[in-house]
């Protein structure tokens, strides 16, 4: 783990001296953060509703949303780390594209699970969906 972190930190530092690499990293990094923040915002609302004994979510929805969020959080970190380690022009490995597919599916499921939620929850779910889609789009194009 320390070796991985050190290598990524080194890539980040070196990137500041190389405009193209730095721009790619900045873009991927920024959208990664936005995707995480939006999902975290949704999670805060959902957790508040659950612990506040609201009608939504029920136990099954809360459990499923937890599983999807846990998966999504892991996938965001994996995809971003993988994309940041690539050089400009280097194709995304299949492992990363597979993870991107899984992330997209997980967030789509979260939106579906929020269909019966109050409007403000749905709005936050849609926001998370948009931010994740932007993250995936930027990572795919890495620009």
């Amino acid at each position, binding site marked *: 783990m320390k070796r991985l972190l050190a290598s*990524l930190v080194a890539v980040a530092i070196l990137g500041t001296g190389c405009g193209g690499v730095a721009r790619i990293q900045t873009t991927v990094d920024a959208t*990664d953060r936005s995707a995480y923040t939006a*999902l975290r915002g949704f999670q805060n609302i959902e957790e508040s509703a*659950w612990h506040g004994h609201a009608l939504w979510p029920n136990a099954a929805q809360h459990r499923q949303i937890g599983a999807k969020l846990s998966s999504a959080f892991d996938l965001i*970190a*994996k995809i*971003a780390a993988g994309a940041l380690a690539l050089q400009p022009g280097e194709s995304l490995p299949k492992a990363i594209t597979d993870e991107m597919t899984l992330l997209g599916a997980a967030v789509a499921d979260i939106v579906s699970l929020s269909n019966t939620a109050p409007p403000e929850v749905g709005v936050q779910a849609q926001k998370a969906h948009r931010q994740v889609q932007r993250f995936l789009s930027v990572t795919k194009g890495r620009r």
Partner: protein
Amino acid sequence: MTPTTKAPTKALEINGQSIDIGQIINLIAQYGPVTIGAVTDVIAAIKKGLGVVDPTAAIADLTALVNDALTAKAEADLAATGLDPQD
């Protein structure tokens, strides 16, 4: 953020201040497995430091973000077990 200083010749020094990369790495490493954005947060913090932001503040921001990510992950995992009490 638009950097107002050029990239330093010594990557770890900005305006006489240094970013302790080892401190950042140790900070993250002690949390164990990579959690949400932990790695990319390290990079973001360094970028902030390479701009004009106080590196100490950047590390503090990083700590807060990592803690938040750990909380988020723990909450999600607990909910996924089906054993998350409502009270």
